[in-house]
């Protein structure tokens, strides 16, 4: 157990937690896939796929266990170990897969998640002992022979899993009995991970070795080195790179000798290991190429290392010693006894004595000496190009990324300022070359901007995978069988966006499961496929991300919605004036729920409000389309990034504004006949069949416009989230442009609330330009 935590240790723990979380996210969907296989004929051999799945799950649990064991999180080790045992039995066919097993595995995922949270706070997992014991008990009950459907032959008695939470009882090396299929298990992904990790390890090792060679007493470095070599060796062994494993093992032995004080040769060991780093690197390079990392002259290296060990610890290595006497004996140049004699009398170099004694000829010694030279300088004979293993990813602080993106945003503005600089317009010269250069620069800046944006992008698959678990759990709870279809998991979305849509997705899927889909029997009765379907799709569309959730359930009932709306006092009159769309939007009202009863899944009417708020905060939109009896389609439309929007520059009088393109439906110049003024002075304009209220932008902000006459300016039809459209009257549309969103400064926000404005941006001419907030304009119209 860890007594005190130093910074390095902490880092390792944090890394472990992050990694383990990723592993769990990966493993959960796989476990749920197994669920479908539970119905298979028990006497049939497991299909190849199932075995693959089991192996995959096994691997992940195994890696988790390894990490936890290394850090001394025994409770985690234990729970993962029991899970591993179960999986092992499943894949060897000792017991049959049942849905109970799937549940158990899910539970152990949950446990591990909890344990990770605990570790994150306390840096140990002692508090999880109880839960771990409970989990192990559950597993034991299930795996014990009486309880599970053992296959015909009672091949191997399930291994006893002790309830005592002691690591000693945990088989520390379950790989041993798995050796044979390990080779199959090494998929390219694992290989890649191994290579990246090893690269990191070697870099660390290198710097620690340098420290060590300067200060032999640096016990901290020795410890760290030992640990690193140990993990490295473990990885190599796990993946079957035996040469690397041997070399790593030897390095470990050397460091162990240093650690225990058996060897005082710190400096020499450090120097030797430093030289060997290249050997490791070359071997890794070999693995990159798809080979098994064979090390040429491995024996020689091992021997050199062995020789550095104190004599009593030295390992006998057959046929390879770098001592000149041994070499001579091996070459048949001298007899062993002669060497012994010579050694006893040794004052001068052994070779010379032997020559003097006439036991060996001078050229033979020369030859032997050359061999020795070669042996003693193993690294100089590795002229293979010194390319380090290529890294595939790095972790970067998200703040740094944000700063980078802000800077690039400023650059876009600065670039605009240069290219459209007013000074240039006073020049009477043809600026051909300047314009060319300017265009070139714009192109690069654009590309840079796009590149920076993609850095923040992550595939949505992780989020989607979490939904698999959710649907599984909900389907258990509600007893409805549901099929979840995922599509477009590779769609990349800004990381903040992913965080923001996680909750809405959960709510939407819950709603579909609970309110949308009918119970299986009912579905059968009304002639729908018995198992309901929810499909979750992500795709890109014109700079937006579209996420659709489609279910084939009841659909939303307009009458019910309106009745509820009237009851809640949200809808006035009998509600017949509402369009279908407006009626659907009712469900986003806080506290609005048409569910007759509140279940533990949903029905309190909080969910959709959360959905709306979260989407608003990322400037997204939500559309609902529903056919009663056919199902519901919910579409989330989210801008790809939050920092930059596509804007339309508009002008009224001297003032410029940006409107988000997303909210513009159309623009037109109205004819006089289309305009009606109500008795209270509200102007309305007829757009096809709809009568829309007109909002004069200049009126909102007290600006003197070019045109007062509606038929002279431009009307822009805007669509906000309320669903009712409005027409904004402006003087001129000036064109579309990429808009870098900036806040209006804290001082302004502190001083008062600015209505109808969501932020600002800086135009090419350096002027600050406000970005209009369509939703709040619409709301203020609705209030009047």
């Amino acid at each position, binding site marked *: 157990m860890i007594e005190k935590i130093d910074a390095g240790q902490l880092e390792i723990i944090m890394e472990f937690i992050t990694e383990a979380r990723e592993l769990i996210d990966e493993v959960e969907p796989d476990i749920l896939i197994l669920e479908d296989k539970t119905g298979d004929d028990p006497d049939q051999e497991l299909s190849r796929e199932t075995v693959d799945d089991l192996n995959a799950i096994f691997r992940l649990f195994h890696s988790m266990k390894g990490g936890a064991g290394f850090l001394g999180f025994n409770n985690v080790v234990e729970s993962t170990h029991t899970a591993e045992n179960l999986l092992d039995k499943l894949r060897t066919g000792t017991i049959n897969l049942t849905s109970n097993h799937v549940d158990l595995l899910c539970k152990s995922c949950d446990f591990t998640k909890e344990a990770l949270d605990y570790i994150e706070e306390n840096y140990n997992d002692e508090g999880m002992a109880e839960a771990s014991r409970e989990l192990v008990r559950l597993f034991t009950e299930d795996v014990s022979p009486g309880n599970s459907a053992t296959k015909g032959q009672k091949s191997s008695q399930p291994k006893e899993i002790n309830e005592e939470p002691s690591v000693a009882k945990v088989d520390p090396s379950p790989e041993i009995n798995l050796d044979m299929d390990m080779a199959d298990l090494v998929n390219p992904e694992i290989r890649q991970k191994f290579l990246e990790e090893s690269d990191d390890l070697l870099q660390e090792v290198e710097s620690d070795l340098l420290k060590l060679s300067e200060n032999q007493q640096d016990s901290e470095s020795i410890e760290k080195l030992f640990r690193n070599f140990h993990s490295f060796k473990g990885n190599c062994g796990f993946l079957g790179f035996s040469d690397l494993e041997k070399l790593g093992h030897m390095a470990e032995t050397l460091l162990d000798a240093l650690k225990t004080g058996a060897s005082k040769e710190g400096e020499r060991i450090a120097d030797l290991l430093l030289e060997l780093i290249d050997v490791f690197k070359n071997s890794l390079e070999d693995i990159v190429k798809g080979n098994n990392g064979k090390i040429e002259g491995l024996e020689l290296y091992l021997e050199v290392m062995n020789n550095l060990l104190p004599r009593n610890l030295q390992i006998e290595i057959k046929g390879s010693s770098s001592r000149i006497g041994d070499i001579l004996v091996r070459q048949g140049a001298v007899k062993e006894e002669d060497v012994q004699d010579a050694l006893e009398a040794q004052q001068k170099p052994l070779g010379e004595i032997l020559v003097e004694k006439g036991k060996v000829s001078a050229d033979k010694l020369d030859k032997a000496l050359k061999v020795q030279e070669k042996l003693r300088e193993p690294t100089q004979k590795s002229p293979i190009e010194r390319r380090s293993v290529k890294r595939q990813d790095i972790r970067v602080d998200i703040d740094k990324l944000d700063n980078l993106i802000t800077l690039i945003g*400023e650059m876009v503005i600065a670039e605009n300022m240069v290219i459209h600089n007013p000074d240039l317009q006073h020049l009477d010269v043809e600026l051909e070359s300047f314009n060319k250069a300017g265009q070139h620069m714009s192109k690069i800046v654009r590309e840079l901007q796009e590149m920076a944006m993609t850095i923040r992008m992550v595939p949505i698959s992780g989020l989607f995978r979490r939904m698999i678990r959710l649907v599984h759990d909900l389907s258990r709870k509600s007893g409805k069988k549901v099929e979840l279809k995922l599509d477009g998991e590779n769609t990349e979305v800004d990381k903040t966006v992913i965080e923001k849509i996680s909750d809405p997705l959960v709510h939407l899927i819950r709603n579909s499961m609970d309110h949308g889909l009918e119970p299986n029997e009912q579905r059968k009765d009304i002639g729908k496929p018995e198992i309901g379907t929810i499909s979750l799709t992500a795709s890109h569309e014109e700079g937006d991300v579209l996420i659709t959730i489609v279910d084939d359930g009841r659909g939303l009932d307009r009458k019910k919605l309106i009745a509820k709306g009237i009851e809640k006092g949200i809808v006035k009159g009998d509600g017949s004036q509402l369009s279908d769309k407006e009626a659907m939007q009712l469900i986003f009202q806080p506290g609005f729920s048409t569910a007759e009863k509140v279940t533990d899944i949903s029905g309190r009417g909080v969910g959709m409000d959360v959905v709306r708020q979260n989407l608003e905060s990322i400037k997204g939109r939500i559309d609902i389309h529903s056919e009663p009896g056919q199902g519901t389609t919910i579409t989330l439309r989210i801008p790809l990034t939050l920092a930059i929007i596509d804007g339309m520059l508009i002008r009224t009088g001297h003032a410029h504004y940006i409107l988000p393109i997303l909210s513009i439906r159309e623009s037109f110049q109205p004819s006089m006949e289309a305009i009606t003024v109500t008795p209270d002075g509200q102007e309305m304009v007829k757009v096809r069949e709809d009568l829309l209220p007109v909002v004069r932008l200049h009126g909102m902000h007290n600006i003197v416009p070019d045109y007062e006459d509606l038929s002279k300016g431009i009307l822009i039809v805007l669509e906000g989230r309320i669903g009712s459209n409005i027409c904004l009257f402006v003087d001129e549309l000036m064109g579309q442009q990429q808009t870098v969103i900036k806040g209006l*400064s804290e001082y302004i926000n502190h001083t008062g609330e600015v209505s109808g*404005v969501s932020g600002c941006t800086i135009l090419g001419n350096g*002027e*600050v330009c406000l970005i209009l907030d369509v939703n709040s304009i619409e709301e203020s119209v609705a209030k009047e």
Partner: protein
Amino acid sequence: MTENSKIRLDEDDDLYDDDEDTQKDKYLTFRLAGEDYGIDIAFVTEIIGIQKITEVPDMPEFIRGVINLRGKVIPVMDVRLRFKLAPRDYDERTCIVVVDIEDNAVGLVVDEVSEVADIPESQVESPPQSGRGKSSRYLKGMGKIDEEVKILLNVDKLLYEEEMEAILEATNN
């Protein structure tokens, strides 16, 4: 925004030093409606010429809007309007003094910037308590240089005292 239209008080300037002591008792003085005012130099980050201000709706009258200061959007307050003095058209002498309080940059529009003056504490009298207008709340004291009197402003209050004013106005009505 052009380099020559502003005076930057940075490392190259004798007036500016990291050492707190050298900034002590130093005030940037400016003119406003015929009177001399001063603000603590420690708050001042730079002085720029007047430039195009984008109006922001729903703001008190004295917040004229926002400007672009090298890619940063900062609000601008007209000190005349803050003190309820008669507004005056901006000209080439009008300056924006950028002050920084707790990492919030705010521009102050003044008629013209005069100089950086040294007013030791002994020469600062506390502000008149009776004060006819409400503006006296923004005052830190009256600084005397020989025969001249500079009205020293409390920048913090100048920026953040508006809630109080709103309450006062509400009760008066």
